[in-house]
């Protein structure tokens, strides 16, 4: 019985052996040890350096991911999916088929159809229709692959966000970023492999479980960087400890640890020595990363960054800086797209504000990556956990409820077609009539682009081989470049 834990142990002991030159073992023993090694575990982790970069089994099209998570569920009907018929039928009861057997979070059943008051036009060679709310997106319509037939299973925010991030509704599973770094490691020597940045009036529902490593080792969990204060918890040494003093401290700790290694022969001590070195390097690399002063005024203006002000725009720029520093997976969360119509959540000024927050920097990021030659092997993902209903929802103003059957998400860069529209919804926008892409399919496709067969990237936990796509998922071949 080989479990991944077993595999870890095996690797650990092999390493232990290799590092134990001083213990005086011969080459014959080495061969016998290696010959007896099990081979079934899908990913081999070097416990002394779990983030060591690994080659995926298939040819990868993308090496890293920037995931712009639009928390709350942006309204596709106000942004990407123009529905003239819906506008025409505004105020009328929806067709009964659209309601029967469906479940909504807040609708009471007496709501009527609501056309968008936003105007749309077609842009680019692909002729993607975009609303006036996203003027900057016009520049990237032909650089992006549009998925207009996204569907999910879950209509509450917390579980739906978990589903989009982990493939499961309940908390406790590894997130997409954790799977990616588990599979690929990360070439970043001075920064974590999976970094999370957040902006907006509040944090995303379900919180840290969205970037949890679940049952995978914590080395693969997302590390939230903060826009203010220490970017990483406990990054700064206590006041009064200069870099020199900290060098002395680390040297002394390392010397004590090496002495203990001599004494006990436990290779886990080597891992600890490496971890302390990385921590020491992060103390300079993380602040250097956050310091935007070396960015040109043109770049800052292109993203819409005001120096010193945490914002989605600043996070987009940081995302670029992170992948420039070889970080494998960067995820941004921006709230609040939850346009029910209540205070702070209306489809009018509140919606306009969140569009303004996000539009310019999202487009600028794609253009910037392209200009720097990074877009070829970086995937950018933009989207929320679900869409919004074609029916209005009556609160203080008329908004829209959560809708799981159809929403829009876009992907750009490494290995996906650009300027390609995949999927179409019916004339009222209730569900896809072509190009339906389920969350599991999206995950399967993204893993494929990273070089994995999603059915093979597994981890054994409590007697079962788990994967990001549970027991589902199909690669969406049509969108591959």
């Amino acid at each position: 019985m080989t479990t991944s834990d077993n595999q870890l142990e095996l690797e650990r002991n092999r390493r232990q052996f290799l590092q134990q030159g001083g213990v005086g073992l011969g080459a014959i023993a080495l061969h016998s040890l290696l010959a007896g090694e099990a081979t079934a575990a899908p990913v081999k982790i070097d416990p002394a350096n779990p983030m060591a970069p690994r080659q995926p089994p298939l040819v990868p099209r993308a090496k890293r991911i920037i995931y712009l998570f639009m928390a709350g569920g942006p309204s596709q009907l106000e942004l990407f999916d123009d529905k003239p018929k819906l506008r025409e039928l505004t105020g009328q009861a929806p067709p009964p088929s659209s309601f029967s057997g469906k479940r909504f979070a807040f609708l009471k059943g007496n709501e009527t159809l609501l056309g968008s008051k936003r105007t749309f036009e077609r842009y680019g060679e692909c002729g993607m229709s975009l609303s006036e709310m996203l003027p900057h997106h016009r520049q990237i319509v032909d650089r992006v692959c549009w998925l207009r037939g996204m569907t999910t299973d879950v209509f509450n925010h917390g579980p739906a966000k978990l589903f989009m991030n982990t493939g499961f509704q309940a908390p406790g599973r590894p997130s997409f970023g954790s799977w990616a770094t588990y599979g690929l490691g990360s070439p970043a020597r001075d920064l974590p492999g999976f970094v999370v940045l957040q902006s907006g009036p509040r944090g995303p529902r379900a919180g840290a479980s969205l970037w949890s490593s679940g049952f995978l080792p914590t080395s693969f969990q997302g590390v939230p960087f903060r826009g203010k204060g220490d970017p990483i918890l406990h990054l700064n040494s206590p006041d009064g400890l200069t870099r020199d003093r900290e060098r002395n401290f680390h040297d002394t700790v390392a010397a004590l640890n090496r002495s203990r290694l001599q004494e006990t022969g436990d290779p886990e001590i080597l891992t600890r020595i490496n971890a302390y070195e990385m921590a020491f390097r992060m103390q300079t690399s993380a602040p250097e990363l956050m310091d935007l002063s070396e960015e040109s005024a043109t770049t800052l203006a292109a993203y819409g960054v005001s120096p010193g002000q945490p914002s989605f725009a600043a996070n987009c720029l940081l995302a670029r800086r992170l992948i420039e520093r070889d970080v494998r997976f960067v995820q941004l969360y921006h709230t609040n797209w939850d346009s029910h119509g209540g205070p702070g959540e209306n489809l009018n000024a509140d919606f306009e504000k969140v569009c303004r927050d996000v539009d310019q920097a999202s487009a600028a990021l794609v253009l910037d990556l392209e200009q720097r030659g990074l877009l070829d092997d970086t995937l950018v993902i933009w989207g929320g956990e679900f869409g919004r209903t074609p029916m209005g929802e009556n609160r203080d103003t008329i908004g829209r409820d959560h809708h799981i059957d159809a929403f829009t998400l876009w992907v750009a860069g490494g290995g996906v077609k650009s300027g390609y529209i995949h999927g179409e919804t019916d004339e009222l926008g209730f569900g896809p009539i072509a190009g339906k892409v389920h969350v599991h399919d999206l995950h399967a496709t993204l893993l494929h682009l990273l070089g994995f067969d999603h059915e093979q990237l597994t981890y054994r936990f409590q007697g079962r081989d788990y994967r990001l796509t549970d027991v589902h998922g199909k690669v969406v071949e049509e969108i591959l470049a």
Partner: protein
Amino acid sequence: MFSETRLAWRSSLCAVVFAWITSSADGADRVSFNEQIRPLLSDRCLACHGPDEKHREADLRLDIRAEAIGTADSPHAILPGKPEQSPLWQRITSTDPDLQMPPPAAKKPRFTAAELALLRRWIEEGAEYEGHWAFLPLRDEPPPATAGAPHPVDAFVHRKLATKNIKPSAEAERTTLIRRVTLDLIGLLPSPDEVSEFVNDQSPTAYERLVDRLLASPHYGERWGRHWLDQARYADSNGYAVDAPREMWPYRDWVIDALNRDLPFDQFTVEQLAGDLLPQPTKHQLIATGFHRNTLINQEGGTDREQFRVEAAMDRANTTGAVWMGLTVGCAQCHSHKFDPISQREYYQLFAFFNSAQDANDRGPTVDVVRGEVFGQPVSVPRDSPAPTAAELAKWRSDWEETTRVRLEKLHQEASTKPVEWSPVASVETRTESGATFTTLDDGSLLSSPMSTPHETYHLTLTSGLPQIAAVRLRTLTHESLPKRGPGRAGNGNFVLTAFALAANGQNQPFARATADHEQPDFSVEGLIDADPKSGWAINVGPGSTARMNSDHEATLVLTKPLMPGGKPFEITMRHDLNANYLVGRFAIEVSAVAPTAVSTHDAALLVALQKPAGDRSKEEVARLQNAFEKAEPRARKVEKKANPDVAQAMVMRDLLQHRETFLLTRGDFTRPNKELGPLVPGVLAAIAPPLGAEGAPPNRLDLARWLVHPDNPLTSRVTVNRIWMRYFGRGMVETDEDFGAQGATPTHPDLLDWLSREFQHSGWSQKSLHRLIVTSATYKQSSRLRPDLVVSDPRNLWLARQERFRLEGEAARDAALTASGLLESALGGPSVHPPQPDGVYAFTQVNKSWPTEKDRQRYRRTLYTFFYRSAPYPLFTTFDAPDFQAVCTRRLRSNTPLQALTLANDGAFFELAQGLALRLATERPGEFAAVLDDRINLATRACFSRPPNETEAKLLRDYVRQQVSSFREDPAAAKSLTTPALRQILDAPEAASLVLLARTLFNADNFITRE
């Protein structure tokens, strides 16, 4: 074969040993089905040829011998004794992709040459099957007579080692031993004195006495309670997005207390799973049922209560499966288990035990528990005044109704007979904060223009010809230009006015009362004149109300003291601090010389209700009267429980009187009950003995609990013993402690596991006896040093020729620092505490959590008492692999990351403890700095590593401290900021700072957070 072997075991000791050796994997004679063949079949074949009927291919099962061999006339896959003729053999050795097994599409590895050889021998030997080892009865084999191993645990382990030609390691050094056993049993470090005492104790029973002392320590319950609480998924909040706090600490205290009194494990099980179903359960037994109340509650708006009730019930079934049976029963939620004999129907029968709980995604039934009560030492809580009797209540109520009705009728009469004359005012100046203007309409009313500022404030300078102003009337009026005709500017025509103030001669003129013709629920007109900026007047209508929002409304405000304006202007300020853009659209202001006798809408409604006979009142009227009565009569109010933090309302299990029907849920979906199959009776897994008694009423949780701890049930004791063993060796004898099924690991020491399981039962399920048995073995006490020969002969240390080194859990790491610093506050139990945590942990959680950092010694409580929010755990926990308690956790990971390094080095909470240790060094080893430095290094190392430093370490630390002292001499300000005033009273700042850094260095050494 099976029954023969069993007989042989029972015949004599000699025969036992012989039978064991021949049937074991180590004997060369026969292939063992359970240890060698079953894992191969399970891994490569059973997904398509196993128990899962939905995915069974070619109608072939290989998990049952009769099915695999078929009959003589119609043989199936295996012909016993004839591998060449067996289709199984042909298929697994075939090179034809269309024939070979496993088929290429299954993406399973093919059998290796060694595996094929085993399978061939097994078929040659007759292809005998055995039941799955974990479901077989416990073997009744006494410990073997192994030379030099008087301890039964060693007898088993050394026998195994002998077959491998491996020698066990020598006993660890005394210092290592006391540190190991103290950490393992109580989770704290031994003090330097305790170490010296043990090291110098020449008595042969010194170690046994040490173990007894530790097992008697109240900290034992904390240490082992923490392990159990992982499995119970205990936390202090509800989980999901809202994640509000809950009071489950009485359950945590119960666990600690139960372990400390060594409550037999069978009783421990029964009370937690079904304490509420025992005859006349005690409060302790009810608190114990909190085990299954640790499920999540989703308080997010719009959630389906039934969905989360079902989810909690499934979690209870799955957790029960994992904790007591070591099985992944949850797999059978959607389909029959692929590898283990758990059908989907059986899963829902297990689920049925938990499907009738009273709680349904809510707090459900509770019991009040006072701090310390579980330990038999309740703190005194001020007693509530005795509840009023029904007769008293009735009298108070009828008196109140009578006087209120009379008062309101009089008021109503006055109001209708004394009409008030309202006069218009003249505007001198009107302005807004943003500069937006007003239009004065023909009737003198003002119309605001669309505002860019969402929280606009109106400033009006007005005059009136009246000699005296006693009241002001604000009329909000509709207008065509407003959304839905207004009168407000919100999308629906509403507004929220949060303040209305009048000032004259630079003095605010307070209002005594405010009334309105109409108020939105929770937006009373009183909000205009109170001090709260977050209360205000609005006019939306509640469901079923006959009032209209989009029409004219008015508010009347009576001044405390009439104002004599004398023709001079006065100022009115109208604020909109609450909802964005909820501004008043069109309005007019009027004044009156006399105060109106007004009946508020609330009073008017009260009067209508009071004038009706009690039986005719509507539900709303009854509620309104009750509220008004409780407001007027405090003695009638229900006592507020929340006020006292020493009292918790602990959530407990209770079943509905009328049990819910349970159906199989198709694909685990609560909206798809399989009604055709009919309702299911609660039941246990048929593959596991004994059968559940099927007499009388349908079985309940109590029957389930008793079945789990029935002496004939082989799983519970095996699983429990294995898990306890795992804590001592870093790995269980069954490595997959959570999976004793076909996919799990086979036991390394099946004989020892069974013997210990029997001992566990025979000792009356005493966990303390089991601990004592294990930790007094030579196997436990041996050195953990890596031996060169073992790198080759047993690289994974499966055969236990040495102990293991492993990193302490987050809790134990901080507790070690607390002990070393001397700051530990060792009180037991009570509400969870809030040690210091860095700012901004909640910057991005949906609901801001309150974290009132402890100011006193509560900040030095053991880490298991730290308040745990599931959505935003105390950062130390996340960093050090603590589970998030969303679901059962039987075994934690042990990672080793840079974030752990940053935490130990820089977390203020740890640094404070380093300062604590430095102070301890300064006070316990006083003297001139250079002269006592070595003493201090010695004490610090003994406090942290439980041993004196070796020469290398002593030199490293001495050099480091000296170097820091001279560095701080150049930078006294830095030294000052790293030290506390208490330290600087004893030492000068550079020396004090260097001692703090010495302590910090030791806390960060591998040795400190490693149990060796």
